[in-house]
């Protein structure tokens, strides 16, 4: 990090700064997506950039997700660093082939002759009544895809540093932005800096139990930790930051220290990140564990519309607290 001054910024503003700085520094960086131009994007992340950099580099597209992502791959093949915005992560089904069969495999199947240096930003996660097609946590859809990098910031400072690092990186990056975090505020340094990809961070130190989480679940885990501190349970929270390839070293070191692990993930429990982390912890830390690893995750349902129903199926602080109590027994 540079010695620039620290200001308070929202997660959304931090992402906007990252795009602005990256575009200012490197002409090969350009943006494309639906209503990202004059309108500034559905969540306002590209606001002001169209005026500053023009319609050529902040390019509005038709509703053609496959073409948007395909075009980023093609531009990267000839040395550009495009950043696509897919308005809702749920729409990634429309460009799944482009990400999985094209972007993620290109460097490998042509044996290093091309680099798919793209970033695909997308808004994921529920909790606001978005319903089945505007609320999902999709990391599990992409976890089984070698070649792809999945980045998932939880805080404004990391949102900015990870987005700049993702744009600088030569790999195809799926950049997940949780909708509930866009207005979360935090300290953000001014100026250009990167946060390393593939590195988790200990968001709170503790000695009794490790909670591994990403994005909104990091905040839920921190709230759970504060609640349990009053009962003398000292919770360590590990924010994964990069989901694939993830930083097993930091996760395992934490679990070896505490001897207990809760894995918190907003997506449905089956076949997702929570299971993957839990399996790795089980394989590597079996002798260090004082209790079985607990997965705190969404119920195995689509996301319902009504807020009461949605709250019922999505995990939060209460479920993490219950999970921690269970491993502390």
């Amino acid at each position, binding site marked *: 990090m540079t010695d620039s001054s620290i200001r308070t910024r929202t997660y959304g503003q931090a992402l906007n700064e990252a795009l602005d700085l990256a575009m200012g520094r490197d002409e090969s960086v350009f943006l494309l997506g639906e209503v990202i131009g004059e309108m500034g994007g559905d969540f306002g992340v590209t606001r002001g950039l169209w005026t500053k950099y023009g319609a050529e580099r902040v390019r509005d597209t*038709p509703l*053609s997700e496959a073409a948007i992502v395909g*075009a980023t*791959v093609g531009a990267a*093949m000839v040395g550009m660093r495009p950043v696509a915005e897919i308005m809702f992560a749920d729409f990634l089904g429309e460009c799944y082939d482009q990400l999985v069969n094209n972007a993620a495999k290109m460097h*490998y199947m042509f044996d290093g002759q*091309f680099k798919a240096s793209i970033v695909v930003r997308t808004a994921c996660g529920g909790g606001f009544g978005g319903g089945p097609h505007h609320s999902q946590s999709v990391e599990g859809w992409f976890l089984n895809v070698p*070649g792809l990098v999945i980045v998932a910031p939880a805080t404004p400072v990391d949102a900015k540093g990870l987005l700049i690092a993702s744009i600088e990186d*030569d*790999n195809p990056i799926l950049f997940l932005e949780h909708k509930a975090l866009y207005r979360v505020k935090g300290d953000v340094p001014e100026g250009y800096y990167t946060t390393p990809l593939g590195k988790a961070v200990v968001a709170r130190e503790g000695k009794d139990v490790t909670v591994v989480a990403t994005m909104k679940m990091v905040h839920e885990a921190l709230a759970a930790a504060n609640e349990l501190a009053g009962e003398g349970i000292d919770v360590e929270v590990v924010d994964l930051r990069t989901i694939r390839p993830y930083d097993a070293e930091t996760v395992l070191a934490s679990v070896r220290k505490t001897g207990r692990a809760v894995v918190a993930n907003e997506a449905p429990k089956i076949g997702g990140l929570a299971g993957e982390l839990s399996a790795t912890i089980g394989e590597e830390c079996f002798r260090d564990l004082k209790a079985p690893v607990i997965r705190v995750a969404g119920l195995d349902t689509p996301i319902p519309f009504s807020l009461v129903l949605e709250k019922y199926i999505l995990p939060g602080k209460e479920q993490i607290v219950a999970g921690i109590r269970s491993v502390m027994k």
Partner: protein
Amino acid sequence: MTLDIETLVDLYRDMWLIRAFELGLEREFKKGNVPGMLHTGVGQEATQAALAAHLKATDCFFPDHRCHGINALAQEKYQGDGERIMAELFGRATGVCSGKGGSLHSANPKVGNFGDNAVEGSYMATVLGVALAWQMRKEPNVACCIIGDGTVGRGEFHESLNMAAIWKLPVLYACVNNGYAISMPVGKGHASADIVDLARGYGMPCVIVDGNDIELAYAEVQKAIEHIRAGNGPYFLEFKTWRWQGLFSGEFRPPEEVKYWKEDHDPIKLARAKIIDASDLTAADIDRIEAEVKEEIERWIDFAKSSPMPDPAKATANVYVDWAVTA
């Protein structure tokens, strides 16, 4: 006769190279020397030879799955080692992708070959980005996308033509309409048997070409590329042709149709007749050209067969840029 005889003979040599390549490959495939699947471009040589003749190394083409021929022509023309395409198909370390890509994923950006994607039509989206980057950087290159008639069923076909049209991108769509998508006749699989009918709504020039007449194919590709290079936006060519091979092999097609395309309208027979008709060259002269090319292809096959297999440990290389994969 619109072409000078030297150009026509060169194109004949290129078409024959494609045919000899494919027939040699098919022979080796049947012997079990070529792994995986094989889709040959026999019968479709004129389209590929015409495109290869006009595309520069600084342009690009996305080959379809019957494009060993244009891959080999570009490799030979710009790097003088067409045998590396053959070696790739044999899965050897000397192949253009070191054996990682094979028949359906051979690429070499140095010769403009941006690689096939075996999910037919996916690169219809990819081509947009190449063209967009060149347009933004004011580089007067042409991004060519070779597709089959079956690909028209993909959503990317429409997303691609639309985006190329609204942004006036330098894209040449070369649709090789060989009459069948796997075994589905084109008129049954699409709302029109003429693909240009589906493309025309996007407002770009759309031209049907006899894809087995090398002179016409050569002239129409030239016209299209001049249009695109001059900054006039995308262009759609539909080449009517026919593949000799079934998708897998030999599914039923009516005998009169087979006779027409193989005997009466074979691109190589047509070109051979034209050359003999329009020049002093005799059948024996052309036989000599064919024998030379055939010999060269046999040399490529020998090269491929005698090349080393890849080091198995390389299977984990280049998954990520600058990140090692650990098991």
